[in-house]
C-alpha cells in the first residue's frame, strides 16, 4: 500500500483544561476527496489549524506523504505541498486580484526572496496567474482590489490562492459558508475542477456539497471521529444519525 497523503495519529489539543481535539487517527489517501463534518464546536477548524501548524498539537503526529511535520512552521509545511484556505476569508484585500494570485505563485516558481527579478517582466508568471484567474472565473476582475469583490468572488479567489502554488494536498475550510444556492453550486463546480487529481480535505456544513463531492466522509463530534467511510455508509451509520446527521437530514426534508 502506498503512503497516505496525510496521516494523523493520536492527535490531541487542549486549551488550558478544555480538550478540543481528543485523539484523532485518520488516514487520507492520495487523490482522495475527504470531507470532515460535524456539529458546531466539534473542533473541525481546530483540527485544520493543527494540521497546518497554525496551532501546535498537545500530543500526536501529523504526517504528510509519510513525513512528520512536527516542529515545522506554516511556511515550511506549505513548501512541502500542503495548502489551505480559511473559514474567514483570508486574502490580501488591498492588492489587486491578479497580484493575489501572483503572490501565491512566487514561491513555488522558485522566486523565493529574490531581489534581482522584476516580477512584471516574468511573462510565464503572469500567464500562469491569468490561467488560474480564468479557471476561477475572475479574469474580468483582474485589476480590481481584492477587497472590493463580492463575497462569493472573494471565496473563489481564496480557493484560487490556495491552489495556485501547485500543492498536491488542498485543505478547504468551509468554502461555501454564507453563500446562496447558486453561489454554492458555482463554488462546488469550481472545487471539482481545480482539485482534479489532488488530495482534497474539506470542512463543510452543506450536506449537498459534502455528498456531492466527497469520496469519504469523517464525522467529528466533540473532538473525536465517530465514523469514517463512504458517504452512503456514513449516512447509514446509527451513531452518526444519532449524534448529528439525523437532525441535519430531518431539517433538509
Amino acid at each position, binding site marked *: 500500500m502506498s503512503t497516505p497523503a496525510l496521516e494523523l495519529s493520536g492527535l490531541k489539543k487542549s486549551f488550558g483544561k478544555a480538550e478540543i481535539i481528543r485523539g484523532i487517527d485518520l488516514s487520507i489517501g492520495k487523490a482522495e476527496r475527504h470531507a470532515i463534518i460535524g456539529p458546531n464546536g466539534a473542533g473541525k477548524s481546530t483540527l485544520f489549524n493543527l494540521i*497546518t501548524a*497554525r496551532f501546535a498539537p498537545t500530543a500526536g503526529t501529523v504526517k504528510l506523504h509519510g513525513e512528520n511535520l512536527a516542529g515545522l*512552521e*506554516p*511556511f515550511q509545511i*506549505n*513548501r512541502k505541498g500542503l*495548502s*489551505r484556505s*480559511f473559514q474567514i476569508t*483570508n*486574502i*490580501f*484585500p*488591498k*492588492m*489587486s486580484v491578479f*497580484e493575489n494570485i*501572483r*503572490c*501565491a505563485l*512566487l*514561491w*513555488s516558481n522558485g*522566486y*523565493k*526572496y*529574490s*531581489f*534581482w*527579478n*522584476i*516580477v*512584471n517582466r516574468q511573462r510565464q508568471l503572469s500567464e500562469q496567474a491569468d490561467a488560474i484567474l480564468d479557471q476561477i472565473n475572475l479574469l*474580468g*476582475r483582474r*485589476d*480590481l*482590489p481584492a*477587497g*472590493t469583490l463580492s463575497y462569493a468572488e472573494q471565496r473563489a479567489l481564496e480557493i484560487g*490562492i490556495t491552489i495556485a*502554488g501547485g500543492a498536491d494536498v488542498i485543505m478547504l475550510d468551509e468554502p461555501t459558508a454564507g453563500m446562496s444556492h447558486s453561489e454554492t453550486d458555482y463554488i462546488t463546480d469550481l472545487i471539482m475542477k481545480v482539485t482534479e487529481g489532488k488530495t482534497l480535505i474539506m470542512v463543510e456544513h452543506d450536506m449537498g456539497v459534502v455528498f456531492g463531492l466527497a469520496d469519504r466522509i469523517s464525522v467529528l463530534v466533540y473532538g473525536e471521529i465517530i465514523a469514517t467511510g463512504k458517504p452512503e455508509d456514513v449516512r447509514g451509520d446509527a451513531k452518526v444519525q444519532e449524534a448529528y446527521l439525523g437532525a441535519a437530514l430531518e431539517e433538509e426534508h
Partner: protein
Amino acid sequence: MNEQLKTDPTKPAQRMRAGGMTITLLPWIIAIIAMLLLPKIFTNNSALTIMNQMSITIIFALAYNMLLGQGGMLSFGHAVYAGVGGFFCMHIMNMSDFFAAMPLPILPLFGGLFGMGLALIVGAFSTRSAGTVFAMISLGVGELIAASSVIVVAFFGGEEGISGDRTYAQPFFGVEFLQQEEVYYLTAAWVIISAALMYAWSRTPVGRMANAVRDNPERAEFLGYSARWVRYYSFVASGFFAGVSGGLFAINYEILTEENLNAYSSGIILLVTFLGGVGFFFGPIIGAIVFTLVQTVLSLQTELWAFYAGSLFVATVMFFPGGLAGLIMMHVPAIKLGKWRLLIVPYFKTLLPAAIGILGLCALIEMIFHYRHGATGDNEMTLFWTTFDSHTIMPWIIAGAIAAIGIGIAKMTAPDLKDAWNEANTMGGQS
C-alpha cells in the same frame, strides 16, 4: 469604459491601493531634467544647500517608506541607520591615506554598507513581528545608539560630533568638490540611482511579498513565505539606503553630531514620509520637498515655522490619510473621465478664499506671538510687507475680519465644490 473607474471616489484610500504603484515614465523624466536644470536657475549657495538637503531627505524618506508604506513596519528610530552610515563616512574622510585614494562620489556607498550592516544586526531580532513590538524595539534601539554618542566618544565624537573635509578625496575626473554646485550634482546622481533602485526593489518578488506580508502576514506564511524573513530583507535594504543618505549628509555638511541619530530626527522622517503619503512610491519624494521648503524657506520668515509644519501634518493626517501624493492621485479618475475642467472654477472659488482666510489666521497667530514675546517697547512688527503696531486694536480687527470672511466664503462655496467633485467623478453626462 474601464472597470477601474468604478471604485468609490469618496474613499481615496481604497482607490489609492487600486492604482497600486504603477507609474508612467514621463513624470520621472521631467523630474530628472528639472533636477539637472535647477542649479542653473537658483545659483546662490543657500539655494543649493536647500536643494541638497532636499535630496538627502528624499533618499532617507524613500528608504523609510520601504519599511512603513511597503512593509507595514512603523519605526521610531530609523535615523540611527542614516546616522551611523554618516559617522562611518566621516571616519573614512579622516583616514587621510585611504580617503586620498578614493573618489568622493563612491563614499555614500560605504555609508550604505555600514547602515546595512547595522540593520543586519538589529533586524535579526526586531523584525520577528511587525506592529507595536517592532515599533518599540526600533524606539529602544534608536535611543540606545543615540545615547551611545556621548559614551563612545572615540566613534561619535561626543557633543561636538565628528567633522572632516571632503576635498581631501581623490579628485574625480578633476572635480574636487570645492563648489557647492559640484556637490549638488553628486547628490542628485545618488538620488536618481537610489530612487531607481528602490523602485525596482518594490517590483521584485521580495518587494511584492513585502506588500503581501504588510496586508496579511498569516496568509503569506501559508503561501510558503516566512513573514519574518520578508520583513528582514526589507529592513536591511532600507538600512542600506538610509546609510546612503547619511553618507551624503556627511559630504554636504562635513560634520555629524548626535542630532543625526536621535529620536527627533527619526520623528521628522516619519512626519516627512507620512506628509508625502505612504501609499505611493513617489509620496515620500513630495513629502521631502515640501517639508524641506517649510523647514528652510518658511523658517527664514517666521520663528513659528514648526507650528505651521505641525498643523500641516495634522491636517494631512486627518483629512488626507493618503498624504499629498494621495491628494494628487485622487484626481486621476476625473482626469481619466476627461471632466477635470469642471473642478477648476469651484476650486478657485473655495480654495482661494480659504487660503486668504488661513493667512489671516496665521497673521493673528503671529500677532499674538509678537504681543507676548516681543521686547518691551518694541511694538512694531512687519507682516506681509506691512509694518504696524501690534499693541493697537486696528490690525487685530483687520486680521480677524480677513480670517473670518475668507474661511466663511470657503465654507459657503464648499458644497458646490463637493457637487462638482461628484459630477467630475461620475461617468456619463456632459463633459
